[in-house]
């Protein structure tokens, strides 16, 4: 499993390397190179899992199965494209004086460390280490959010730290309870926290303990997913940090938190034989979709608006996994993929637009299409894609979620339709105002800081492809993962 060790080792090494050279002018290229190497290693790993099936590594400490392997690839891919996007972005920020050399070093080092913790959380087999990696990811991103040291960014980072710290502490209590239940069946040896062992004996776990454990795990990881009412940290952290950080927060961190929740749900379903976990996930998922949709209406800051859109989509995925069954799980996984791709593409476009306009207030950004057609189109297409317009992938997954909901949970359909409609109106109106009309933006930057359009269109292209055609191996993969989650 050298591919796995490389996937985890390269970003860790990268964090140390960037701590030494991150302030140099070539650090941005090194950042891209490191992320590219990580992505390559992840591809090799994926290829091995696809051909040889689920595998352990390091004496059961790591476990790769269909559920996490596609998230590993996705994480490494978005990590790479965000690094490509951040190369010109950070150069411009440095020109504007917002990023000083020490801040750049911190940014580059923490960026790699964040990737490392995400990949560790995805691949570890130990529920305790999963928690440790999630907490470490919080710590790494706290520093990234506050990197500009403005009053608002410090406040956002403080809120993020305290809220997520408290939230994730509840998940630790849940993990302790889970261990307590497992210990009775598996003995006090270290193996009692390994997910594969827990999965094997899940029907024998004590239902009383597991009920309480899931409640705490749900609060804990749910905070990180951004579920209402514990979502307050999310818009602030997205809006006040550098845009590449917003892209990885939405594209990766929320996914990984949801992944942790899914692992816990599989165990809980097995132990309880009641739909407790499903009901909790459906209820809070729906609440998040609705609340976020109405909050979307009153946003003035473009990054805050798309942060609320992330809450909405995470709620939709949580709802889908709560409904359960092969189709809804399939749709949830597909939605995880396309949301991650499209939302990070939007943040790339937003990043370039706000840099050009010098503001994040939507009323002050006008006529993107005139100022730069490539930028205008990426913004417009990204917004249409995230709003669920065919033929993009979000349409396919939302369509599947809606039709399954109609069949299995008809009561939820009107709420979902209402929320999706409101979200469409709110986002479309704002984006169309920003994109069309006469421009108020200054002329473009110099050639060597030309914005990176490649990541945006690569993501949009993949999102488009998933809406029209899902490659057979990907399809088989989703099906396996969906079947594994049962429900």
């Amino acid at each position: 499993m050298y591919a796995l060790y490389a996937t985890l080792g390269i970003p860790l090494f990268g964090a140390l390397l960037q701590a030494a050279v991150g302030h140099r002018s070539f650090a941005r290229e090194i950042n891209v190179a490191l992320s590219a190497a990580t992505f390559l290693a992840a591809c090799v790993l994926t290829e091995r899992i696809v051909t040889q099936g689920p595998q352990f590594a390091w004496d059961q400490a790591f476990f790769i199965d269909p559920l996490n392997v596609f998230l590993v690839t996705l994480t490494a891919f978005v990590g790479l494209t965000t690094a490509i996007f951040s190369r010109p972005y950070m150069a411009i920020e440095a020109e504007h004086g917002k990023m000083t050399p020490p801040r750049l070093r911190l940014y580059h080092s923490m960026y790699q460390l964040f990737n490392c913790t995400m990949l560790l959380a995805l691949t570890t087999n130990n529920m305790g280490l999963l928690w440790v990696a999630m907490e470490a990811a919080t710590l790494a991103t706290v520093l990234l959010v506050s990197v500009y040291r403005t009053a608002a960014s410090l406040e956002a980072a403080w809120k993020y730290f305290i809220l997520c710290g408290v939230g994730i502490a509840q998940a630790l209590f849940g993990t302790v309870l889970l261990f307590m239940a497992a210990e009775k069946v598996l003995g006090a040896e270290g193996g009692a926290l390994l997910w594969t062992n827990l999965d094997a004996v899940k029907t024998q776990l004590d239902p009383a303990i597991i009920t309480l454990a899931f409640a705490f795990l749900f609060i804990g990881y749910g905070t990180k997913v951004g579920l209402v009412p514990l979502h307050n940290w999310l818009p602030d952290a997205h809006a006040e940090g550098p845009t590449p950080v917003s892209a990885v927060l939405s594209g990766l961190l929320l996914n990984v938190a949801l992944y942790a929740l899914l692992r816990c749900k599989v165990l809980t379903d097995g132990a309880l034989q009641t739909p407790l976990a499903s009901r909790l996930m459906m209820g809070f998922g729906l609440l998040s979709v609705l609340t976020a949709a109405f909050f979307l209406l009153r946003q003035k800051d473009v990054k805050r608006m798309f942060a609320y859109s992330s809450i909405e989509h995470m709620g939709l995925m949580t709802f889908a996994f709560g409904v359960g069954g092969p189709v809804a799980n399939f749709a949830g996984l597909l939605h995880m993929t396309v949301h991650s791709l499209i939302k990070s593409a939007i943040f790339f476009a937003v990043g370039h637009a706000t840099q050009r306009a010098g503001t994040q207030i939507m009323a002050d950004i006008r006529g993107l299409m005139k100022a730069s057609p490539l930028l205008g189109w990426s913004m417009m297409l990204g917004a249409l894609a995230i709003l669920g317009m065919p033929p993009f992938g979000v349409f396919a997954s939302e369509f599947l979620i809606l039709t399954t909901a109609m069949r299995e949970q008809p009561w939820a359909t009107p709420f979902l339709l209402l929320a999706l409609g409101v979200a469409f109106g709110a986002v479309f109106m704002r984006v169309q105002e920003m994109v069309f009309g006469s421009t108020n933006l200054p002329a473009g930057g110099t050639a060597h800081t030309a914005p990176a359009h490649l990541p945006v269109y690569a993501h949009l292209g993949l999102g488009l492809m998933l809406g029209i055609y899902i490659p057979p191996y990907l399809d088989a993969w989703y099906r396996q993962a969906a079947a594994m989650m049962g429900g």
Partner: protein
Amino acid sequence: MQGMFGQLINLFASVLLLLSFAMLAQRRVVTLIDLFMLQGATLVAATTVVGVVTHQPHLYLSAALTLLLKVALIPWLLHRVIRQLNVRWDVETLINIPTTLLLGIVLVIFAFNLALPISQLSSSVARGTLGIALAGVLLSFLMMITRSKAVSQVIGFLSMENCLFFAATSATYGMPLVVELGIALDVLVGILILGVFMFQLRERFDSLDIRHIEKLKED
């Protein structure tokens, strides 16, 4: 012999609960740090006793780690920070102590009720104390909500971590070593980041009062 150790653990658990209440009632930042140190010391004692009873060597290691981190290093760091920031004699003025304590009692009753059916299933010698650990977590939570000073919020956060560790020892025989090490590392890095943060907050706002800092709207 077993009975005596059981009594000892119950004693330490009640001391832990008492200290949680003392923290809830304490207005002075500097005294809060001392209380936090005492809480850490109680945790070390409780972990050691469970270690002696169950002959689990990794519990000694866990106790040593707690001693090093939560009794020595973190209080020392916190003292240093408040000295440098000149907030040593800061007093929380806007909290109603009696009401907070009453709320705390309600939380304890709630925690005991929640933990009662579960603690009977535990195989640890310290099973009766799971309720206390949960109560401690909730009390720390309450403390974080009611305080407006950044340092007090951080101490509430650390106290919550202490109670979680106590929960791990009382519900089971402590988490596997690799997990415990990972958690300790996270706590240490977390506190270092928070320390740096407090200096940045101070530089930016001339205050460590969270009420002065909250400007971002709730929309």
